[in-house]
């Protein structure tokens, strides 16, 4: 099983890398022209760059060269800065991981209580109100919310809520670190769906006949309801929403000047710095894949029968 999953993951990453590479090559702009900014480059200059760097001239040649590097565990170096991509990802990655996981936690802290409450009291006015609030919150464009929050902090609380913008180590630095996490958690657009899905599934499980029977007999319902009504839909939502959270992280990192992968990939996208883009795409795809594997494991764990038949 493990070998199969590993092979599938490798295949998926290969596919992602190919697609990203092709898109990069179809989009206008030569990745190596960033080296020629500042001069009016003729054809000769362009060719000489390729020659000087020893890059294949065809796109598939470049892709294969890149693949060859990957096979040797080398993610290549950024065209723009010359820095090894793997090292940069290792430096910026934890920041983004912190941001995305933290924001997922915020999302869940928001969505789960609302879902639980409104699953048990679907018709209550408070439950409706809460749901409406949750829906509103997840329809806010994330960067705009970031602006609003920063504006509030500056003009209401008199602080500049950015870690890397303050001249001195901030007194409440940890708080500023929390802000982007909260903003992303609230406005990554997934709060509403997590709430809806969780509430739906939980509501469904709680009304299933055997749960009703069990409850009538006084048997503990929570264990089953937890597994089918909570654990499964939760992992499912997290697994399917990870790409959105990652996308939101790119925005939040710009607004809050967060030194993570999102800011890196944004700069790289401007310059068509393909080794960086590819490296980050791989990491992101692996992350998404990991989430869906986790989902599969939890599914199998909750329902041992699935793998048997």
């Amino acid at each position: 099983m493990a070998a199969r999953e590993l092979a599938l993951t490798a295949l998926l990453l290969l596919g992602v890398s190919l697609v990203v590479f092709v898109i990069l090559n179809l989009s206008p702009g030569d990745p190596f022209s960033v080296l020629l900014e500042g001069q009016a480059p003729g054809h000769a200059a362009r060719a000489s760059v390729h020659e000087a760097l020893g890059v294949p001239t065809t796109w598939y040649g470049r892709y294969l060269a890149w693949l060859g590097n990957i096979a040797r565990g080398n993610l290549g170096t950024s065209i723009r800065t010359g820095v090894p991509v793997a090292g940069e990802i290792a430096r910026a990655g934890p920041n983004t991981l912190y941001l995305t996981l933290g924001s997922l936690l915020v999302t869940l802290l928001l969505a789960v209580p609302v879902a639980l409450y409104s699953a048990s009291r679907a018709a209550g006015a408070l439950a409706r109100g809460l749901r409406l609030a949750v829906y509103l919150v997840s329809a806010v464009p994330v960067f705009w919310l970031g602006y609003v929050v920063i504006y509030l902090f500056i003009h209401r609380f008199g602080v500049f809520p950015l870690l890397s913008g303050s001249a001195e180590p901030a007194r409440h630095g940890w708080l500023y670190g929390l802000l982007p996490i909260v903003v992303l958690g609230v406005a990554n657009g997934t709060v509403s769906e997590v709430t809806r899905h969780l509430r739906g599934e939980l509501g469904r499980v709680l009304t299933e006949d055997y749960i009703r029977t069990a409850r009538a007999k006084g048997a503990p319902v929570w264990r089953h309801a937890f597994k089918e009504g909570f654990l499964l839909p939760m992992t499912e939502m997290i697994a399917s929403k990870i790409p959105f959270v990652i996308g939101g992280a790119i925005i939040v990192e710009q607004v809050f000047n967060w030194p993570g992968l999102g800011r890196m990939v944004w700069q790289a996208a401007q310059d068509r710095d393909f080794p960086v883009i590819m490296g980050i795409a791989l990491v992101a795809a692996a992350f998404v894949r990991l989430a869906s594997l986790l989902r599969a494991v939890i599914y199998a764990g909750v329902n041992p029968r699935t793998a048997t038949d």
Partner: protein
Amino acid sequence: MARPLLEVTDLRKQYQARAGMLAALHGRTRSVPAVDGVSFGLSEHETLGLVGESGCGKTTIGRIVLGVTPASSGRVVFDGHEITALRPRALRPLRKQMQMIFQDLDAALNPRMRVRDILREAITLHHRLEQTEVARRTSELLDQVNLKSAKLASFPHELSGGEKRRVGIARVLAVGARFIVADEPTSALDVSIQAQIVNLLRDLQTRLGLSYLFISHDLEVVELVSHRVAVMYLGRIVEIGPAERVARASRHPYTSILWSSLVEKRSDEVARNGAAAWGVFDFERPGQGCRFAPRCPVYEAAGRPAICTDPTSEPTLRDVGDGQSVACHFPLAR
């Protein structure tokens, strides 16, 4: 009775069970026998009751008989077709003759389909019919299971338990089944409705000449509907014979305890609590010889004879006359 419709010979089934959530990752499994050498026959128009505690393998037998679950070994022959040797595709034509009533009331009912669609699907599954013909057949089915035609527009969740069961039965009849595995058909229903369903099944048998493999842990119901009864204990049949004899003149200590506890307590709930007190058989480290020995009062009373725990002499079914067979070294006297 009439000619044999179903013959089951030395059926075995092992399950691969995993130990916990992490086992999914390293894939470690252990083998658990659910059915361990079971043989019996069923004639046309006959009802064979299959009783035993939950987990004894009776549902597994029902599923294997219908070809839903593959057997580990052994043979199932239905009407001359060897079910255990057929591929799923080849099995499909036989489906119109053999069907199952599931324990789960909702099993047969797709929650998004109206009763009318559920029935139409079953009716048209094996026969191409005109619209009018479908309508005629639908109302005929409703008639047979005593369901109001107003229910046709309902979704499953709008039905009561009894109605769901009736729709389930109608669905099975719709494909034209003549052999039905009824897996705990009354277990999820109120007592009053249980009676209606039992009577309905018996009426249908009379009217349509059906054969049932009737699986239940409810001895009262089994005794009521069955012509013959097979008693299972931990994957094996310990006693089989005419319903009256098994119930009233059981020869196996286990059967006897089952029915006497029924007589004494008459209460489903208490009986189950009593059973729980007996402890659970550990399949991973099976006992030696007779499986029932650790719980057997006769074995205790006889001073724990060695033959009962001799691994080479697990008791097999022996004919004790009047169509009754028992698997015990020391069968009870008449």
